[in-house]
């Protein structure tokens, strides 16, 4: 980099500044106003027990997700089988589908099967594992596919058993990806509210974020704000673990092979069938509910007699998600550039992960009180933007890391400025990933429950829970179905773009 080259410094600057404003401003405001209650909250034994329980429950869910996810990652990375592309689509979709949708379908399933007396932690755990196992498959599998088998083959030829090879050779090589996906899963499990609201009837026994939400709703806002420090610290530790190992260079992709033994074929088939069943079950359950006469009437309720709340929720969700996605994509391109080309710390770009829905929701709510002239919709957009910047960065970063810096370098020696080179070479190659990040953020934002719940926003997921709490389960079912369909459309576009982006990289 030339000493007079300012492009690298100036291009990501605006994104870095906005990232800190969006994340730190609400959090700091929140902690300052909750400072009085810090001592009382953290000396409260039940609160500390709740915190401990939340960590343990999240860890159990993560452990289960990793155990179930590793074989899936292996299957997706190493085996070739019919409809592999479709199954990859299914698994990634399950990773990103709103937890509220999975939770609601599980709730209906429990009702239908008559298991209503079951401990609510079991279905909550199942939903969280269902949502996070595909995450492990995705991140570990995407690394595994590039890992050549030479070391494993060599160890086998030296007389080591396959199991030992797996634990002593393969697992250490996958360590960074396992740590990454497990930490991300932990953050998701620990910060989740939707599953607890839908399946646990708002129980906060093992979920700090729901506990904070309940404190907030009950008017004990100072305590909620003070307690929000705890999830920040805990998830920040998880974030540090996520990036403990830097992302290593990947070698050439090994070709996937057809599973050889009968047992591996059987195992692959069973695993994929379970994945398919999990994917299909919400559709079936919602379809059964919607096709019943009572739900048909709730359609007219939602879109007609309920003073157009349903359509307003849809409209709000759409505005929030599209605008947040646009801003996220704009910022994430610059942040990814800063990480990939300037060595900007990855953990800082992923900082919003540690704030989560609770902190951002409460923080922007406080800003709304202080600055009442700001439209609540704007606050919701900003909160969702801050919340999903890391997702957009994650999508774009892998693409930008795959594009050699040599392209820009050569273009510069051919007489073009750094800015021109980036816009005409790197940006063109990044375009599919750019749109992919837009669609992924749009659909995640469309299905986001946490921040609008704190902001009292009128969006599809908040309505879903509100309808459920008011006893209109058919209406909730309809909202969940809408959420599911919108997610599928958005994700399908994003997935197509992902393939194009990957081939460019």
């Amino acid at each position, binding site marked *: *980099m*030339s000493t*007079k080259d300012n492009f690298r410094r100036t291009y990501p600057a605006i994104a870095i500044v906005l990232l800190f404003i969006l994340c730190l401003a609400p959090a700091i405001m929140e902690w300052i106003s909750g400072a009085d209650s810090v001592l009382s909250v953290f000396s409260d034994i039940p609160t500390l027990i709740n915190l401990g329980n939340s960590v343990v429950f999240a860890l159990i869910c993560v452990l289960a997700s990793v155990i179930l996810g590793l074989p899936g990652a292996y299957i997706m990375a190493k085996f070739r089988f019919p409809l592999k592309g479709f199954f990859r689509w299914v698994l990634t979709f399950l990773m990103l589908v709103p937890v509220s949708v999975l939770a609601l379908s599980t709730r209906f399933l429990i009702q239908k099967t008559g298991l209503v007396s079951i401990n609510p932690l079991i279905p909550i755990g199942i939903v969280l594992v269902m949502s996070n196992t595909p995450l492990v498959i995705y991140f570990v599998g995407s690394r595994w596919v590039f890992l050549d088998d030479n070391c494993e083959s060599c160890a086998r030829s030296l007389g080591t058993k396959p199991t030992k090879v797996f634990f002593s050779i393969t697992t250490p090589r996958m360590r960074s990806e396992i740590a990454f996906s497990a930490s991300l899963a932990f953050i998701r499990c620990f910060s989740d509210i939707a599953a607890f609201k839908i399946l646990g009837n708002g129980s906060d026994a093992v979920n700090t974020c729901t506990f904070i939400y309940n404190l907030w709703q009950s008017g004990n806002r100072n305590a909620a704000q003070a307690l929000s420090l705890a999830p920040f610290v805990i998830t920040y530790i998880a974030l540090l673990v996520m990036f403990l190992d830097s992302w290593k260079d990947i070698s050439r992709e090994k070709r996937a092979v057809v599973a050889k033994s009968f047992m591996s074929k059987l195992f692959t088939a069973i695993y994929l069938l379970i994945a398919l069943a999990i994917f299909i079950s919400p559709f079936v359950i919602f379809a059964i509910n919607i096709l019943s006469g009572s739900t048909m009437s709730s359609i007219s309720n939602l879109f007609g007699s309920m003073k157009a709340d349903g359509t307003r929720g849809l409209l709000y969700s759409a505005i929030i998600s599209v605008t947040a996605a646009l801003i996220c994509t704009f910022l994430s391109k610059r942040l990814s550039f800063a990480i990939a080309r300037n060595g900007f710390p990855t953990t800082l770009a992923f900082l919003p992960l540690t704030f989560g829905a609770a902190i951002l929701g409460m923080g922007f709510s406080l800003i709304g009180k202080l600055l009442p002239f700001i439209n609540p919709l704007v606050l919701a957009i900003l909160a969702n933007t801050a919340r999903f910047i890391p997702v957009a960065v994650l999508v774009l970063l892998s693409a930008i890391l795959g594009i050699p810096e*040599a392209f820009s370098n050569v273009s*510069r*020696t051919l007489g073009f400025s*750094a800015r021109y080179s980036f816009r005409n070479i790197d940006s063109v190659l990044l375009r599919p990933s750019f749109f992919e990040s837009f669609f992924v953020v749009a659909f995640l934002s469309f299905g986001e429950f946490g921040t609008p719940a704190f902001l009292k926003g009128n969006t599809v997921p908040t309505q879903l829970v509100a309808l459920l709490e008011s006893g209109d389960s058919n209406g909730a079912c309809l909202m969940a179905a809408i959420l599911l369909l919108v997610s599928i459309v958005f994700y399908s576009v994003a997935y197509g773009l992902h393939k194009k982006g990957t081939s460019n990289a």
Partner: protein
Amino acid sequence: MPEFGLVCNDIRKKYHKLALDLSFSVNKGELISIIGPSGSGKSTILRLISGLDTIDDGSILIDGKDITNLRPEQRNTTIVLPDYALFPNMNVEKNIAYPMRTLHLSREELKAEVRRLIEQVNLTGYEKRTIDELTPMERLKTALARALAAKPSVLLLDEPLSLLDAEERLVLRNEIKEIQRNTGITTVFVSNNQEEALSIADKVIVLRNGRIEQMGSPEDIYRRPCSEFTATFTGECNILPYDVILKTLRVPETERSKIIYQCFGPEHRLLFRPEDMVVNDMPGLPFPEFFPHLRFENAKIIRCEYLGKEYLVTAQYDGFTIKVYTVYKPASDTITAGIRMTKILEFNDGKLIRH
């Protein structure tokens, strides 16, 4: 006085393990090769000249103009990287036309210029091909044409032949040399292949740990290496201690003491190339009395490698290991070879003191 195309004045650059510190100049229109072991700073020099990295100290001049503080796009140097870095979102034609965007040419002029470059690198018929459809050789040609399209003052080639097979390397190095001669562009060619570097260059720089070990014509580098490092790095050679003189010198007694005591010091080491040795292929018939001076008679063969056009024989004689080329495979397990005094280089403490 020759006009300099490129001058590097006391350029210094410090990396974690490498401290680059060197000065050199290249005449306008000359092709200079840089060779050296991995990590010696060959590619770094190109990055510094092109401005992709900044120097800590010193200055770089191109055609007499100080470009040290200019950005890469202002230096009028183009670089061809080892993997060619062809833009995957453009086909061959568009890759080559890319540098001409700044020239504000009309459509027809642009097409004509692209066609001329494509013909210059023998890529006619490949205009519309995507990068994925090209072989490494075609990619290199595209990268060369793209680099030439920018009409650079200095062309930097960073191991351009490393992805090609042996036959392609031979063809392309001749093509590169021909293009360079025709265009007259000052060129810096970094290579990991010594033979390639010597064959293509007007001048060669041997680099060692970020410093210039030797700079000179290819013949000087090979025939008169200034150090044992250059000698061993540029090709096979025999390095033997002073004792070998006492044991193998076959000259009349009157000349013997003169050669031994006037020419060599006991701490010196002798160096000679295997191809300069003369092999006695007909055992029983002695060497002529006057030739060669040092004789390794009936040296025991310890290894015989077939290289295609000849054999490389490694043999031991009285505790000394020698390497010698021979056209015919040795018939027995011994070989007799010798070397003339004029072919022997004398080194003291790794540095050449007599040739």
